[in-house]
């Protein structure tokens, strides 16, 4: 038995406080949830039909001093994508793990831990997944300057600019 999106969203809204599902398009919705409720919220959604966790990603809102974790869920009965967003402070970014709900989340969490420095409480294995011998701050944070890092570590090729009139490369 499959229920429509409205039925699922009404049922979930009655269980959690201050939750409003925002419609982006016909088959795309978004919702924000507090960090402490995120595990039970995702568990409820999974039981109601959003059984497929497509992706976990992270956004660095540097001016608001917050990280936003976005869980993208998919419902195979209605073909609907739902983005569940939660925020955590930038100084001490800790989010509970959702490995118990979707075991594959382990690797997304490792990835976010490596590239943003967000700690996932309860994930036993947060060792680096992609980078090797990385010593700087996590590279996907907005305050990391990749060009400066590249200049320091990987020398550029020196070019003789003889195919342009002198000074013309600065003219717009």
């Amino acid at each position, binding site marked *: 038995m499959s229920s429509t999106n409205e039925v699922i969203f009404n049922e979930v809204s009655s269980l959690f406080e201050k939750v409003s599902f925002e419609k982006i398009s016909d088959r795309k919705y978004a919702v924000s949830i507090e960090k402490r409720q995120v595990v039970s919220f995702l568990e409820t959604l999974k039981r109601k039909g959003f059984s497929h966790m497509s992706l976990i990603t992270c956004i660095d809102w540097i001016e608001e001093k917050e990280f936003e974790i976005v869980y993208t869920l998919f419902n195979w009965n209605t073909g609907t994508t739902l983005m569940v967003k939660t925020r955590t402070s930038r100084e001490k970014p800790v989010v509970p793990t959702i490995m118990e709900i979707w075991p594959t989340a382990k690797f997304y969490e490792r990835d976010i831990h490596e590239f943003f420095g967000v700690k996932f409480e309860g994930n036993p294995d947060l060792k680096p997944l992609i980078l090797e011998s990385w010593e700087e701050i996590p590279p996907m944070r907005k305050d990391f300057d990749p060009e400066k890092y*590249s200049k320091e570590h*990987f020398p550029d090729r020196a070019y003789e600019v003889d195919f342009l009139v002198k000074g013309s490369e600065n003219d717009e």
Partner: protein
Amino acid sequence: MTKQQSAWEKVANMLRARSLWMLYYCTGCGAIELPPTMTSRFDMERFGISPMATPRQADILLITGYLSTKTLRRVIYTYEQMQAPKYIVGFGSCTLNGGIYYDSYATINKLDLYIPVDLYLAGCMPRPEAIVSGFKKLMEKIDRGEADGWKRYQENYEWYKKNQLSALGEVYIHDEFHE
């Protein structure tokens, strides 16, 4: 800058230039231009160049596209496994100057600092015509004895090692396949 070749070297280089086995290390998007170059339309094999699956039997190491530091470690491993004489072709603008990844924290900008490159194929991407023309150039260079990257690597090993270490920290690979 033609070096004096002995008679034996002349014969050997002539033969080497006419039978090249190529290991294509598909690091980036450049690999997509190789199937048309290999197959019937451009038919690389008429020049005696054919693909080879293992580094130990290959003559050319073709680096197709950008190299991240992680891949560079593997490329150095692969290059050291190959038997001399061996030639490296840098393919696409990413190997020349970083290409569109010039400001990436993970991608090197200049391949010939780390391994000796005999020939660069510029372009993003070079078309099969450019690849075929590049290989013809490489064959001529080998014939004349100018493609001596493998000798330069032996002579300037300390310099290459120093550059590799400054970019990578260490060349040794720690992963499930190497430990």
